[in-house]
């Protein structure tokens, strides 16, 4: 079956400096498929510079991959026909970090919601258009009387971000790519946005790629998770497995660095890098070796493959080299195959 959206072995290299000779690999050899059969929320986490936002932009067609291709229903994003492009723009939606920047502050919120209806001719009459807007707002838990007729600055960050989700929802998409949708929203309002995102999956059958640096919210709403480190997949699999029992030393570092809201569970000290870490060559070997407390001989020679440590997860780390390998372009199969065997936990 043709995937809705497929990243086929994509690499993105940014050049900088004189003649663009300093190359930064933002994302390397990344493959992923999103099917329409079952809606899933896939988290993508990593520190700044890990390539997570680059990945979002590549999937949305806002950047072109240096190598490989992103395909929408089998067609390369670079060569879509007009009809295909219109369909892509409708089926794949984006929600960005700053709910202020996405608005034109001179227009009322209504304008934001009416524009897609007009552009995509979603409604035959004004009344129908209004009904669509009411439905979309209701789905994300907003009351029309406190959103419509207002200017963006009159709404809270949580409300603005939910208007963005409602706008995406109007187009009846199959996939929403959300890049740090809650990181600028206050703690007491974050839950409102996260709940709206869950509703998309559970009630509207929309898949979501949730990009964040916050492992805690990812754990709460995702089915699967991909941990990126410097453009490379460090660990991938079922979110509960990855968060509760991380296999890659980088994921372990991430999980242990999260400040727990409990004064009696104090942060542990960051583990010291291994003695070999100092000799790690950044151009060769595991990208994490220079910081890794477990680095040993093999880590310095080549980038490790994905080792499938269990049915629902794989990690690119030589500590697990006894496990069967998983080709990078089969990562999605691990998620797909796995998602078939157990029903996702619908927590609400």
């Amino acid at each position, binding site marked *: 079956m043709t995937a809705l959206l497929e990243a086929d072995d994509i690499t993105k290299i940014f050049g900088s400096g004189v003649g663009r000779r300093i190359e930064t690999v933002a994302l390397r050899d990344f493959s992923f498929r999103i099917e329409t059969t079952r809606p899933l929320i896939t988290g993508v986490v990593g520190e700044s510079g890990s390539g997570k936002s680059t990945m979002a932009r590549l999937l949305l067609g806002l950047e072109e991959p240096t190598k490989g291709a992103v395909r929408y229903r089998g067609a390369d994003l670079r060569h879509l026909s007009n009809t295909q492009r219109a369909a892509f723009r409708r089926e794949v939606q984006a929600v960005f970090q700053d709910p202020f920047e996405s608005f034109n502050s001179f227009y009322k919120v209504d304008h934001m919601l009416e524009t897609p209806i007009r552009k995509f001719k979603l409604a035959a009459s004004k009344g129908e258009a209004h009904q669509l807007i009411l439905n979309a707002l209701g789905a994300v838990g907003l009351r029309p009387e406190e959103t419509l007729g207002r200017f963006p600055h009159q709404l809270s960050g949580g409300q603005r971000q939910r208007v963005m989700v409602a706008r995406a929802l109007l187009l009846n998409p199959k996939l929403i790519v959300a890049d740090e949708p809650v990181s600028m929203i206050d703690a007491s309002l974050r839950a409102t946005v996260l*709940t709206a995102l869950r509703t998309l999956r559970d009630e509207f059958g929309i898949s979501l790629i949730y990009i964040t640096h916050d492992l805690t919210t990812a754990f709460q709403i995702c089915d699967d998770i991909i941990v990126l480190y410097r453009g490379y997949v460090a660990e991938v699999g079922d979110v509960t497995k990855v968060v509760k029992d991380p296999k890659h030393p980088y994921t372990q570092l991430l999980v242990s660095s999260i400040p727990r809201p409990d004064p009696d569970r104090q942060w542990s000290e960051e583990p010291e890098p291994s003695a070999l870490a100092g000799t790690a060559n950044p151009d060769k070997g595991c990208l994490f070796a220079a910081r890794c407390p477990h680095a040993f001989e093999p880590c310095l020679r080549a980038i490790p493959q994905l080792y499938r440590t269990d049915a629902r997860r794989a990690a690119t780390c030589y500590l697990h080299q006894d496990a069967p390998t998983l080709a990078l372009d089969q990562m999605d199969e691990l998620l797909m195959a796995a998602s078939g065997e157990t029903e996702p936990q619908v927590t609400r």
Partner: protein
Amino acid sequence: MTSILEVNDLRVYFHTPRGMVKAVDNVTFDVHAGERFGLIGESGSGKSTIALAIMRLIRSPGRIESGEIRLEGENLLALSDEEMRQRRLAGVAMVTQGAMNSLNPVMRIRQQFADGLNSHGETVTVDEAREQLVDLLARVGLKPEAADVYPHQLSGGMKQRVCIALAMSLRPSLIIADEPTSALDVVVQRQVVQTLRQVQEELDAAVILIGHDMGLMAQFASRVGVMYAGKLVEEGPVRAIFRQPEHPYTRILMESLPSLDEKETLQVVKGAPPSAADRPAGCVFHPRCPFVMDRCIQEEPLFREVAPEQWAACHLHDEPAAAHSLSREVAE
């Protein structure tokens, strides 16, 4: 315990064309010598305005209307501008949110350090200054080479640590850190906050950490204050506040924290914080409060001690039966 900082009845208002905005209203708290105090609040709650008021850096249309800010007994609000300039860095230093952007991009770190010393009349030779800086950099876990570089040659976490080192340069008795890690990711955040903590212990300075991340507060602070819509609504020892919050807002903040232990129902808080220009009468939190009573709509609650060393501004504590229901629900 001696107080290093006493803030009494502080009011900071902004006089905008659309009316007066009470950014900080009637706030009283103190910070003990050598203590780590956390000031929690969402955006617009007034927490950063308090920091700027302590530094006396409130700009027009903002104004400190009334109150006292005493640093080691001395009322900062009564000082002349020049006297206050001398107190900054030497008495109270600040590390800001975008501290990385507060470094001068065209000056080496050591020149910026020397600037701080010179402006406070310290006469040191270039070599002495460098030696002091290297010592400070070592305390924040940076190599001596960091003294000779320009800010862009350092990573975000390193720049933030440089700022902590510079804040320590005249050994202030109080360091205010306003969201020092909000632009950093978790791994670097842990390094920076642990650095701050270690430095605080070595210098025996008091630190006010301002932020909205409850996890960070739990890890760093020994005592915390909770701001809501320009008001301090609760204050107390960190364990007490996290175990047994006495103000409904604090309680809701605690409950809305997503857990890393189990997948759960996300608690949705109704409503949104009021805009500072349009604050409700009575208790500022009453429109969102699940325990709202008639009295809350009319009468502002007093900030008072509701448990040993734990203060809250909530009418529930005047009515024993109601207070009981709050604590029982928390226990459940």
